[in-house]
């Protein structure tokens, strides 16, 4: 297994180049690039500039593990407005294009968003429809779309069987699950999601979750590895059981008030412990 971390974790005033140095020095093998979430990688970034990002990543001794985006929170594939859906599809297409340019074979998509306004059944139908089409585009590019389980925030595909059925309905070998072991909260157990989805897991996000804290205003339930309630020995054993040998990508909130680079070192060390199984 290889370790990666998102470029959106790089301290805001550091810039991409200095951030890459930090990621490498901390011991990561790769970096996850967040389309639209960082100044150096936007929808308007040209192919030439994307190739330049790849060159910088390679010069730092890293590779791009995958291309993610937070843009679908504002422009979901499940929107009622067909113009918003068209923009959402364009974002996925750009992710696929840039993944190819960056030498990666995986992207992360937040598939749908259930709201008071847009009900579950509509979201389900639209997401299946969109991903069937986008799955074809991804397959032709040799890229896998990993739909992230954002159980609590999306209010969509809450249980692992539900997610399994969804992927069955999409029925595309290029569409799987980007499994976030911190997003399951009180709705289940990450190790069971790993077991159930096995070969359909495209990438894995790592963070810990304080299951019993709940949400109160903007209070976060997320924390660094081993500080929360995830059962890490069980999660590691489940990875072995399903023979997951892919990228592990740290995705935590930047919570270090002082010495923000220290979070990179601590996270890399914690991931090494997880991979080695010394838990």
């Amino acid at each position, binding site marked *: 297994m290889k370790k990666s971390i998102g470029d959106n974790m790089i301290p805001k005033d550091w810039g991409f180049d200095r951030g890459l140095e930090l990621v490498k020095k901390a011991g990561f093998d790769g970096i996850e690039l967040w389309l639209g979430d960082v100044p150096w990688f936007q929808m308007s970034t040209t192919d030439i500039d994307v190739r330049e990002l790849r060159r910088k990543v390679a010069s730092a001794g890293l590779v791009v593990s995958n291309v993610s985006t937070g843009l679908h929170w504002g422009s979901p594939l499940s929107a*009622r407005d*067909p*113009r918003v859906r068209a923009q959402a599809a364009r974002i996925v297409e750009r992710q696929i294009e840039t993944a190819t340019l960056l030498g990666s074979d995986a992207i992360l998509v937040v598939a749908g968003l259930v709201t008071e306004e847009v009900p579950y059944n*509509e979201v*389900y139908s*639209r997401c299946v429809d969109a991903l069937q089409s986008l799955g074809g585009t991804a397959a032709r590019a040799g890229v896998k779309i990993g739909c992230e389980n954002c159980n609590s925030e999306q209010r969509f595909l809450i249980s692992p069987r539900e997610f399994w059925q969804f992927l069955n309905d999409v029925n595309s070998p290029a569409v799987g699950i980007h499994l976030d072991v911190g997003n399951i909260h009180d709705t289940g157990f990450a190790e069971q999601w790993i077991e159930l989805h096995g070969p359909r897991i495209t990438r894995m996000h790592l963070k810990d979750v304080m299951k019993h804290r709940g949400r109160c205003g903007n209070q976060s339930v997320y924390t660094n590895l081993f500080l929360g309630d995830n059962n890490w020995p069980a999660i590691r054993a489940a990875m072995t059981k399903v023979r997951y040998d892919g990228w592990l990508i740290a995705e935590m909130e930047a919570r270090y008030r002082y010495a923000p680079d220290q979070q990179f070192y601590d996270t890399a060390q914690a991931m090494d412990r997880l991979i080695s199984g010394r838990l």
Partner: protein
Amino acid sequence: MVMTRREFLTASAGVMSVGGVLRGRPGCILLDLKGGCLRESVAGYVSALHPRVRIAEWHSLSPCAVLIVPGTLDISPAAARAIAACTHAGATVILECGAGFTDERAFGAQRAALLDCLQLKIEPPVQLWPRRTPYIDYSWPYSVKLRDFSRVVPLGAQTGEMIAWVDDLPIAIKRRRGRGTLIFLGSPIGPALWAHDAQARSWLAAVLATA
């Protein structure tokens, strides 16, 4: 309107198969305006009425008992005239407006076409959300709440029976036209049909039973 037991059973059966209401009766046509309509609304009616609906374009419309026009985003005067001809010939026309999802220019063009050809007066779209409840109250053919569709097209004052409201805004109307009936929906239900919404399917079955 009070719903009879027979009507209720007909409507309830529609949850399983709306198309069953049309069995043994002359044609139901779905007018596909291609890029000029909400595609998932087309998919919704097709899924609800399969296999008893035939898809046609406006220049090839033939006489029929029921004509459904899903989620209009852009409707040409020629298409509006073809729809008007259907009502005059005796068809029940369900015209669903998707103009809440177009720009101002397309809305203006649709508004003019509907007024000129069908004497329908529509008002600029209203953004409903956020709101307290996500439902539109239908009073015909029976009283039911159906999901709203975010941006509705209200109706101006005109002749005919208003059959649905959101808060105090009239959203749907039923009117005799020639030998037929025109039913205008300012809030699309096609996407709800597509999402297998039970109440939307029952309501459509009940409407078709009156045709």
